Structure formats: C-alpha cells, structure tokens
C-alpha cells in the first residue's frame, strides 16, 4: 500500500499536458488533433490543395459518418468491458431489411427507418440476452453474430444486391441542409456551446483553468464553428449524414457523462464485482448497452444503404474492425472503464482522413490496409508508453 503514495508526485508537465489543462481536454485529445492537423497539411500539400477543399472535407465527413456511429456504439460496450465483433454483419442484416421494404414493398422513408431500428434493437437484445442471461462471453456471442447475421441476410436475399432505394431515402445520408440554414445552425451551436461552458464552469471546481481557461475554451469553440462554416458554405451546406452523427454523438455523450446509466457503465467496466456490491444492477446495464448498440446498427445501416442507394452483399464488411480500431485510437481502453464518445468520433475521423488522403494520392487499397494496420499498432504502443512513463516508479 505504501508504495502508491510514493508514485503520486506530479511529474513535470509537458507542453501538451499544459495546453490540455488549460482548455480542459486530455492529453490524448490534443495529440490526436495535432496528428490530424499534421496529416491534413501533408495531404493538402501532396494533393496540391485538393484535400483541404470544402468539397473534399464534406465528402470526408460523409464517409466518416458510418464508422463514427458504430465506433461510438462499440466504445460504450468496450467501456463496459464487453466487445462487439458482429457490427458489420448486423449492419448488413439491418440494411437488407431496409432495402427489402424500400424495393419490394415501396414503403415510405419513416416506416422503413422505424422497422430498421426495430431490427437493430432485436439483434442487440438477442446478443445482450445471451451475454446477460446465459453468461456467454460477448466475444463469443458476437463472433456467432458475425457469422450468423450475414448468413441470415444472404439466405433471405440470395446474397443479391438490392437497388435502387427511393430518392427521399437516399437523401437521409446524401442530402444537404441548405447553406443559410446551415449557418444558422452553426450560430446556434456556438451560442449554446458557449452558454454551457459559462454556466457549467462551477461544476468543474476541482479542475484548473479559471477565467483564462474558460475564455480559451470559448475561443476554441468559435474557431471550430468558423472552420465548419467555411467548409459548409464553400460546398452545399451541412451533409445530412453529419446531422445523424451529431445527434447520436450528443445523445450518447450526454448519456455517458451526465446520467446514472453512463456513470455505472464506467464503474462496471473498471471493476464489475465492486459495482455489483455497490448495488449496481449489472445485468440490466449490460442489456441496455447491447440495445443501444443495436440502435446504432440500424442508424449505420440506414446511412450505408442511403449512401449506396443499395444493399450489397459486401455491405458493412470489416466494419467492426474499423469501429474497434477507431474506438481504441480514440482512447477507449480494451480493458474497460476508460473511453469517451468524443474520442471515438475523433478516432473515426483520423481513420477516415487517412483513407481519404491516401485515396486522393492514388495509393493502392492494399497498401492502405497495411498502413491502417500499422497506425493502429503505433497508436496503441504510444498509449502503452505514455501510460508507463506516467506510472513510472509504480508497481
């Protein structure tokens, strides 16, 4: 016990850590944003200014929407100490449901989305029940899902491509909020964000920053809004896909950071036994986690089918791997208990940036896979190194 006291001495802070302290973000976020900026500059120079054009950035956001959605969902499960390997297949199965309704029954958009959502929730409940009631490890349950869901989809559709989807349905992902409305939305986002920062400053009474930190945070928020305004005004407004990500992200962020459900998710992931003894209903929370993941299958499936205007047999393939990679790059610990929604979105953004930049540079997709794999390894190794030096002299 005594040694723990010895290790608590604060090491001299690095510049990045100081910056983080000031704006109230953690070191990992700052590093990720720095990597993002460096990559953007490199890609921009290499592509002769194409990468940082409003058009490409808008495209990039649309590409990133699907990964962001599932990365958020899986990060919730990883925080709880579980995993989901079935994402790609589950998204595909939801997608076939949507496509079937659109093509064979010509259903309107809203009922289609509602049924897709139900299918997603059903898949989430199915896997959640195996984990909670029968105590099968989620790794195994979702590995089963990975095989069975795609198999079921192929069986029901004869592995056919179902296309095309209706015009209003495609607009769910591919449409745009008109530019003037987009600007109003961004303005509102800035005002609401600044208000939350000002009003919420007291609840951070334990963390540093002060008035200067608050100002820095508001300025950062303003800069981000201006950058977004430049992108959206420069092309065709906010892509609808981005609205889905923002909506799901805000909802999940609120759930994870402001509610009892979210708080308990972190406790369960860090020490399940202690959480149980503290009166947390672990089973109920676990089932809730899988249901939320299920809803996110459906959202991702809707975006994917709308984007392709089809459900193809390859839909969602390897999506689970991208999702887990994004969550992990975004700071979610595979040992549970650590991670955030914002981190998962940033992680997804990094992955998509690398994809997009390399595609612009005509790098072969085979090489892209190699590079993505290496990035995942380097990100994790860097994480281990940082954590080790932080707890140096410890256990």
């Amino acid at each position, binding site marked *: *016990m*005594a*040694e*723990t*006291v*010895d*290790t*608590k*001495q*604060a*090491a*001299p802070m690095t510049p990045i850590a100081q910056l983080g302290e000031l704006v109230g973000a953690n070191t990992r976020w700052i590093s990720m944003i720095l990597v993002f900026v460096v990559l953007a500059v490199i890609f921009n120079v290499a592509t002769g200014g194409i990468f940082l054009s409003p058009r490409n950035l808008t495209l990039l956001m649309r590409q990133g929407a699907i990964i962001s959605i599932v990365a958020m969902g899986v990060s919730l499960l990883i925080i709880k100490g579980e995993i989901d390997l079935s994402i790609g297949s589950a998204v595909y199965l939801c997608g076939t449901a949507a496509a079937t309704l659109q093509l064979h029954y010509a259903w309107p958009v809203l009922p289609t989305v509602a049924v897709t959502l139900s299918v997603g929730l059903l898949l989430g409940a199915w896997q959640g029940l195996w984990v909670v009631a029968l105590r099968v490890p989620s790794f195994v349950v979702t590995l089963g899902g990975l095989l069975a869901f795609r198999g079921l989809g192929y069986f029901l559709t004869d592995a056919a491509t179902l296309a095309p989807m209706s015009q209003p349905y495609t607009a769910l992902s591919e449409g745009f909020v008109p530019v003037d409305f987009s600007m109003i939305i961004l303005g509102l986002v800035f005002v609401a964000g600044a208000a939350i920062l000002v009003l919420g400053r*007291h*609840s951070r*009474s*334990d*963390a540093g920053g002060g008035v200067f930190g608050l100002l820095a945070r508001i300025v950062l928020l303003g800069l981000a809004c201006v950058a977004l305004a430049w992108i959206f005004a420069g092309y065709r407004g906010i892509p609808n896909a981005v609205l889905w990500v923002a909506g799901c992200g805000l909802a999940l962020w609120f759930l994870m950071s*402001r*509610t*009892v*459900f979210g*708080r*308990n998710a*972190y*406790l369960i992931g*860090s*020490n399940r*036994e*202690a*959480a*149980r*003894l*503290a*009166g*947390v*209903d672990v089973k109920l929370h676990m089932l809730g986690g899988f249901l939320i993941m299920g809803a996110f299958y459906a959202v991702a499936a809707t975006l994917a089918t709308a984007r392709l205007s089809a459900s193809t047999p390859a839909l969602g393939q390897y999506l689970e791997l991208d999702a887990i990679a994004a969550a992990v790059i975004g700071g979610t*610990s595979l040992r549970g*208990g*650590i991670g955030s929604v914002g981190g998962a979105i940033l992680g997804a953004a990094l992955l998509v940036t690398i994809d997009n930049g390399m595609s612009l540079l005509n790098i072969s997709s085979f090489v892209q896979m190699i590079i993505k794999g290496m990035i995942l390894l380097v990100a994790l190794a860097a994480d281990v190194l940082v954590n080790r030096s932080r707890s140096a*002299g410890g256990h």
Partner: protein
Amino acid sequence: MASDSALRIENLTKEFGGVPAVSDASLSIAAGESVALLGENGAGKSTLMKVVAGIYPSGTYKGRMFLGGEELQCRNVRDAESKGIVLVPQELHIAPNLTIAENAAMGVLPHRFGIVDRAGLYRHAKACLDFFGMQADPGKPASALSASEQRLLMISAALSRAEPRVLILDEPTASLTEGEARHMYERIRRVSKSGVATILITHRLDEIQGVCDRAIVLRNGEVVLQTDNVTNRDNELVRAMIGREPETAKNRAVSAGGKIALSVSGLKVQGAGESTKPYVNGANLDVRFGEIVGLFGLVGAGRTELAKAVFGAWGGDVAGEVSINGVAGRPRNPKEALARGLAMLTEDRKRSGIIEGQSVLFNMSAASIERVSSWGLIKRRQEYDRDYGLARRLDLRPLKLSKHIETYSGGNQQKVMLAKWLATEPDVLIADEPTYGVDVGARYEIYQVLRQLADAGKAILLISSDLEEIINETDRVLVMYKGRVTGEFERGTARHVLMAAATGQSGGESVPEAERAAELQ
C-alpha cells in the same frame, strides 16, 4: 557492528519526479538479526526495501548499499534474488486456477529439456507446505487454500527460491489471525536464527515483541529512530512514527444499544450446489441501534461469508432468517440490501472495493448516485458538494476528488470506501476488516467515524481479526467459530478469553480433542 553487518545502507535517497520518497537513509542489519521497519503508510518503508530488492535498479537512486561487506548493485529483482535478497511483497500474486504446486514453483518450474518435472514440482510444493505445517494436496487449485494459507505458501515458496541472506517481509500478517501470525513468526524466527538478516515491514506494534530484536522507524522518508530492543517502547515508537503524541484510548461508556437493527437467525451459507461443509452453519446474532458489535474469529470461521450472505452478495446457497430494521426477509442482492438501509464495507479492498482507473468522486458516489440524481440525471453540483463534505469529514489526503483512487495510500483508499457507504446513509453498517492494510493515523480516523455513527444511533457490525481493535472499539463482542456464533462477551473481556472462544475452547460446544489441538497449533 558495521563490520559483520549482512546489509548496510548508506545515505540512500530515492526520488520520484523530484520529490524524495526516501531521503538520506542509513542503517545496517547483522546476519541472524531480525529488525522491524516501522512507519506510517507513505513513510518510505516499501520504497526503501524495493531499492534493496532490486525493484528499483542501481542508478535510479543515490547512496550506496553493501551486502556482507561487498557493494551491492542490482540490475533487477532476479539479480537481487541470486545474491540472496528475498522480498515477499504485501500484495501476493496467486494464480487461483493453477495448482498449489505450480503456484509454489512460479518462475522456477523444475524441468528437464523443457518438460516440467512433475515429481520434482510436487516434492517442492510438499516441502513448501510442510514448512508451515499445512495439510493440503499440491495438485488442488490454489483457490482451495484460504487467503492466509496462500500467504504462508508464497512466503515459503519465496524462501525456497534461493539461499536467503536477507529476507524482507512486507506486512506479512495483514491477512492472518493472531494464532496464524504467531505460528508464522516462530518459523521466521528459526530462519532468521540460521543466519539470515530479516527485515519486517509492519505497522502493527503488538506483534513485533518477541519477534524482532530492534526497530527502525521511518517518517517522511527519513530514519527518525533506531532502538536496540523493542520491549515496552510502544509509546516511543508510535510517537516516532506519527511525529506527535499518540491519542490515548478514552474510557468511554459502553453503549447499551436500542431497538434491534439487524437480526440474523439460523443462517446457513454454502457454496453453490456444493455438498461440502457449509461456511456458516446456523449462525444467530443481533445488532442494536447505537452500538458497535465486534465479530471476532479466525480466518475461515465464516465471518465474511456471513456478512456477504446478509448483504445479498453471496453467490452460493443461503438459508435462514435475516431481518433489517424490523423488516424480515433476506436481501436477494446488494441493491435490495442498500435500499433497506444496510451497507457493507467489503474486506478485500483491492478486488471488490476500490474501482481502479476511476476518480475519487466516482468511487465515492458508486453506491449512492441515485441519491444525487433525478430521472437518471446526475446533479453534478450536488454530487460534488456532498462528496467533498464527506472527504473533508474523513480527512482525505490529498483532498482532491478528481484524482484517480489508485494514486492514494491504503489508508486514504479505505477512507474513500467508508465515505462511499456513508453516502448511502445506512441504518446498519457491516465493516469487514475496515483497517486491513491501513496506517495508524487513518485507523484512528476510521474508528472515530464508526463511533460517531453509533452515537448518531446507527448499528455497526465490526468484523475483525485484530484483537486490539475488537477490544478497544466495540461495545460487545461476538465470537465465531466454525460457522457459528459461539460466544458473546461484554466489553473489556480479556484477550485470552476471546482467543479461547475463537479457537473453540469455550462457548458451550464440545470440540473433539484432536481437532482442538490442530486449531491451537
């Protein structure tokens, strides 16, 4: 003295991030001598010994060390072990699913051409078990041993690893009962007499008499006192450890207690679907509002199992009646127990108490987040204020709620755990070994809070293997033996009477002669 010293440390300083954990410490220990290294948590005892044992390799500290006259520089733990320095850490790492034999030989599996020599493995394990006179099948999984038996096994396994010249034991008795501790010290004494310099890190003064020849006290990383004997110097040692006059136990009135708060009758606790002997077999007890009831017994008497069953946290089979606050019915899970006003400070802090990787705030609110939320939304300001108040009341040091819990010392972690249960505003609190691995200062604060709770009319069941604690801090003592509550004693009952009851010598139950002899060993 200096010439024939087995281990000599000169002007050793070890810093972490510029802050010294040990500063300018010098000491020497002769072969065959047994020395107590005393100090509060954070005094630098463990750090100093980790330097000696090569956990912090040479070059990471300032100062010099000599082993039998030769300068000692270790590159790592293996290096130190090969030179005869054996450190038995406080936290033992046991693989519960591996066999006893495999655990005993961890890291030094006997093998021939890469194939494990099973006969040698079992011979080695048998020797390790015999060293402390334990009866167990080396082929059984290590989880079959009790916590204290596991500790004894790891000590003998560590000793068997190399020809020891310096033996360092870090809080070896933390999970042992008095009888087991005495038994262990007898063996250690024998090892030490054979020419091994023994260093015992502890903060239990009662147990060093008759075991150690000398005492060295560390405070804030400095050697503040070295004595040449340990008899009747408790006050002097405590003063050196905490740097001020120790608080004397006040002669307070015994609280008679009011209405019955917790009542247990005919409780039977068994492993799930097991036909083996139950852990608790027909236990009865009452705890009244306003009193602290001590529950004393040896490890394995069934105290923790009883507490878990009452709290609804036992995984196996339970039968019997429990009534909380006048309402009958056994809680089915901890959630229900908490809702009915029962809280339980768990015994195994690291495993089932603290939630590592999370902040003090999250840990403190873990059991009571609903109380500062409405419709599932956390009222963060209210949560922070409440937790900050609790942390202040318990004198958490440092007082910072955003820090991760694992960065705190054992004593402060335990304060957070106590705060976690206080936040649920319980009527009845079961505290299972609340001062295990907790330093003197924090112990005193924990006792104070427990007493305040009782004075405020709450009922407290204090489970402990520490006789001092049982005698000084409770109003009434219950003794458990072999799954039953076999005796009830007034406050002020002599130690030997309690000990006799805990070993089955009284309490109205006849115990076969041979079994009694085995218990007394």
